[in-house]
């Protein structure tokens, strides 16, 4: 029996007792690490990127988008928790697709994951560079070249990931907690609770500049408030207790982000005109500057830096796991499926994805990189309802033991599918060319996989779960 199959809820005791797997990834993570991985990747969305939703529809549109995106991600978390706590293996949704829908879907999902995370990593590195450049300008060092800092950030985090997952995610836990606390401190310091407040909502808030169409359009960047929370699944093969840690860590992460997103929106729209906010590179840092407090400016500057580093760190972790899993299954050259003999990390995948992140971090504008990431995420979210519906049909509840069963099925799947449809339309409004280019790419690579690459893949060996034959086959 493979290492993966021993990790199923029904026979979890044996695997949970063993801290390591022979030749596999190290099983050392707990629920707090899962929370840190999910929130760590996403919290940067409060520090940059979400505000483009304000640009697409105005301040109120961004808030509506934030809450609807929250519903979308609650559905994602519910569905994902059920499937991942049952299919607990590296690769997350990729491995789910392989067992539930089929190899081509799995290959596409693997690519969605790699591109969503690698583009997000590139966006984070761009923000690190932008922040360093801004701080240099504020301290009288105009014209500082941000590119060496972009390269340094990506290289340092890749090295950290190379050296080991426990140290990487513990580092994430600390800097994510700091970044989240910084938002809370900024909120408390600027709120009317402690004296005069710099917030001016009554004077700065306007109506909907694009009407209700702008509200729909804002859903595009509304996803950025939460994008990447589903990355918790990538650590499935490295958690001590997948059936407990994954649902707890993921759902706690969504709640944390919903709170942080609403606080962030409230702060920023009370301090900046929407036209500026909609195009700002680092809105929370700008908000701290507008508060007039040097201490808050420094705090949020460090918070922005930590949030971007935590996110990039988690992205390297997740993208490399997905690439590793595809290599292990021969969907990609098997060379990528190697685990480091000492550090037990997918080191070849980690190294290989570094130059790809650099190509985009050094060569593409921030909003384009974010859109590429969002589009890959959106394609993945559209897969999830199809995945859970097929999962329940092929293996009804009484046929295999699940670590977690999400309630109200199929309502979350239907809601998620509807919200994905709305978000596709939102991306079409303003970024239609990228949408078509991205879909064209996935069509071409799908044909390449089906007609060329798949011949190198063993058939039955892909199915590693100790499940009965699916119903209907």
């Amino acid at each position, binding site marked *: 029996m493979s290492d993966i199959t021993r990790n199923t809820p029904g026979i979890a005791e044996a695997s949970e007792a063993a801290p390591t797997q022979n030749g596999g990834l190290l099983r050392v993570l707990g629920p707090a690490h899962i929370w840190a991985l999910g929130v760590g990747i996403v919290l940067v969305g409060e520090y940059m990127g979400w505000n483009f939703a304000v*640009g697409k529809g105005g301040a109120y549109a961004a808030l509506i988008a934030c809450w609807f995106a929250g519903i979308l991600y609650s559905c994602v978390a519910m569905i994902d928790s059920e499937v991942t706590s049952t299919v607990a293996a590296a690769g997350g949704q990729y491995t789910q697709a392989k067992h539930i829908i089929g190899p081509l879907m799995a290959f596409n999902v693997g690519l969605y994951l790699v591109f969503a995370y690698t583009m997000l990593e590139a966006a984070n590195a761009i923000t690190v560079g932008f922040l360093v450049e801004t701080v240099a300008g504020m301290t009288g060092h105009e014209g500082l070249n941000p590119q060496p800092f972009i390269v340094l950030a990506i290289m340092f985090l890749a090295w950290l990931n190379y050296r080991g997952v426990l140290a990487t995610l513990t580092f994430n836990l600390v800097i994510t907690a700091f970044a989240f606390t910084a938002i809370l401190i900024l909120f408390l310091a600027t709120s009317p609770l402690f004296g005069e407040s710099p917030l001016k909502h009554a004077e700065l808030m306007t109506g909907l500049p694009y009407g209700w169409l702008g509200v729909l359009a804002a859903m595009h960047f509304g996803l950025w408030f939460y994008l990447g929370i589903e990355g918790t699944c990538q650590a499935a093969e490295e958690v001590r207790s997948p059936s407990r840690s994954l649902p707890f860590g993921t759902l706690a992460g969504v709640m944390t982000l919903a709170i942080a997103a609403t606080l962030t929106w409230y702060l920023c729209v009370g301090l900046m005109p929407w036209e500026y906010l909609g195009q700002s590179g680092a809105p929370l840092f700008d908000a701290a500057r507008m508060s007039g407090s040097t201490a808050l400016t420094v705090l949020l500057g460090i918070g922005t830096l930590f949030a971007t580093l935590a996110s990039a760190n988690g992205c390297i972790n997740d993208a490399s796991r997905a690439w590793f899993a595809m290599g292990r299954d021969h969907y990609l050259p098997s060379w990528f499926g190697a685990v480091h003999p000492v550090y037990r990390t997918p080191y070849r995948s980690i190294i290989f994805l570094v130059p790809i992140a650099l190509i985009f971090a050094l060569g*593409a504008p921030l909003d384009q990189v974010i859109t590429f990431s969002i589009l890959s995420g959106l394609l993945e979210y559209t897969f999830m309802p199809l995945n859970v519906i097929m999962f329940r049909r092929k293996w009804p509840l009484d046929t295999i033991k699940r670590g977690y069963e999400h309630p109200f099925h199929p309502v979350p799947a239907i809601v998620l599918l509807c919200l994905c449809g709305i978000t596709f339309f939102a991306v079409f*409004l303003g970024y239609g060319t990228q949408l078509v280019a991205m879909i064209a790419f996935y069509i071409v690579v799908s044909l390449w996989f089906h007609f060329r690459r798949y011949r190198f893949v063993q058939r039955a060996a892909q199915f590693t779960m100790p499940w009965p034959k699916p119903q209907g086959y």
Partner: protein
Amino acid sequence: MARYTPPPQSKLGQIFDVIVLLALTVGALYIPLWLGMAGSAQLHDTVDAPSWESLQQNATMVEQWAKLGFADAEAAAPLITARFDYSFSFFALIAVIVTVLGYYTMMLKLSEKEYRDVIAEKFGEE
């Protein structure tokens, strides 16, 4: 069902496959940028000699713009007048819907074909 044995792939073949995938990736993301087709459909209304009043900014907004480093209306005008163009043709929308649905349909059908082989080999034909 007879067990399928994949052909061994040479190192050169593996490298070639990675290069193809990389070329497709970089192409998909960079070709729209190089062709100038990527990016937001934002328009800028040109305003001659803009003032805070003509840009419909109240006193508080002007104060906040100043804190952000925009000393006069002319400096802030490009940001304030930037607007997305959400006009679209019905044909373009239908084309995008067909593309997205066509992609998922193709993928599900081909996946199902592959999946049946996997299940047949794993559990045996009934």
